[in-house]
């Protein structure tokens, strides 16, 4: 198996940069969001290029990239699973669900599988307690199922 990697090709970076208003510091969050969406993380070289494009100090880019949970300095999986740990979900099997996901994938909470397919995180209450236990799958909410069955389904054929 070859090393999985997220290709940071010059074309995609320049596309991203071209869409940013030059010298406009207020576009920084938007720029990082675009980088996160394109590369599933904020690559260092992209952050540096964004800093130059927006005339923002690299220290500020780094500060923002490490402050917001939506940004990550390391590539996230193709599928990001966020297990809700709110009270209702906890009561309806979220810990079991989380444990099963983590042990099946062999990662720790917040971690990503080596092949960059899955990232598993926890989240505070997402406000969908009626469908507990809730998991956000790349932003879409799923729930209303028995924890083990859900874990199996979420990971597809993978065991």
């Amino acid at each position, binding site marked *: 198996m070859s090393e999985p990697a997220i290709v940071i090709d010059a074309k995609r970076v320049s596309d991203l940069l071209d869409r940013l208003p030059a010298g406009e510091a207020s576009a920084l969050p938007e720029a990082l969001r675009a980088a996160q969406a394109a590369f599933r993380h904020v690559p*260092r070289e992209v952050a540096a290029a964004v800093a130059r494009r927006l005339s923002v100090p690299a*220290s500020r880019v*780094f500060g923002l990239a*490490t402050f917001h949970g939506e940004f990550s300095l390391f590539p996230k999986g193709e599928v990001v699973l966020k297990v809700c740990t709110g009270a209702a979900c906890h009561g309806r099997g979220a810990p079991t669900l989380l444990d099963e996901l983590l042990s099946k994938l062999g990662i720790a909470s917040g971690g990503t599988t080596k092949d960059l397919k899955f990232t598993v995180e926890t989240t505070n209450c997402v406000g969908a307690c009626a469908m507990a236990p809730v998991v956000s799958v790349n932003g879409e909410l799923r729930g209303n199922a028995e924890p083990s069955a859900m874990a199996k389904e979420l990971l597809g054929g993978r065991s």
Partner: protein
Amino acid sequence: MIAMDIDGRRVVTEEGRTLLDAAREAGIDIPTLCHHEALEPFGGCRLCVVEAAPADSRGPAELVISCLAPARDGLVVRTASERVKEARRTVLDLLLARCPTSDVIRRLAAEHGVPRTSFPESTDGSKCILCMLCERVCAKIGAHAIGGAGKSRGKRIAAPFDLAAEDCIGCLACARICPTGHIGYEETDDERKIWGRTFRMVKCEVTGRPLMTEEQRSFEAKRAGLPEDWFTKCPESKRRETAETIAKAFEEVR
């Protein structure tokens, strides 16, 4: 003109000053950790807390952050009341839990009657109290080389991507302004090491003493629109030269 009562003394100050400014101008000491005259007030450490009440107020005085609170006419301010001392002890109790290895914080806490913290101590060994003085002074200088990274309990001061700080000019302002000595550096007559960088020193052409880093010289020259060779002598040598020039001029006149 604004007239206030601070600790029973009449203190006069101007519009736009803070309670801390006014107190210090009157020689009344309020402890601070995140305050610096050259920088904007920040209100991060909360150590400068005081009690303030409008003269006509029938309600209780409020605890306010003196480095931020504007001076207002008729305010009655108490900088060392029991309530203020208690609030300050809480602040120091927390800071001590954050930085149990900092001598500065330990001493300050002890002086205020907090020999040990009542909270669980942080074990990361960091002496950083997140006063952000380093980030703020670096930004004020215009280098913006370092800053806060992360958030919540994981917040820390870092160079971008935890690599050598590319924008650093090696001026040491951050290390010198840091109240707890958290920012380490190494220095010889020839070089300076900080934030993962090694800087070569420019020497005074008269005394041979280290003057500033080469990067600092370029930075200052660019900012002031001066040639780089403007910075060739240490202030002492310059003063001596000026004095000699004046002395010579007098001799000629005589």
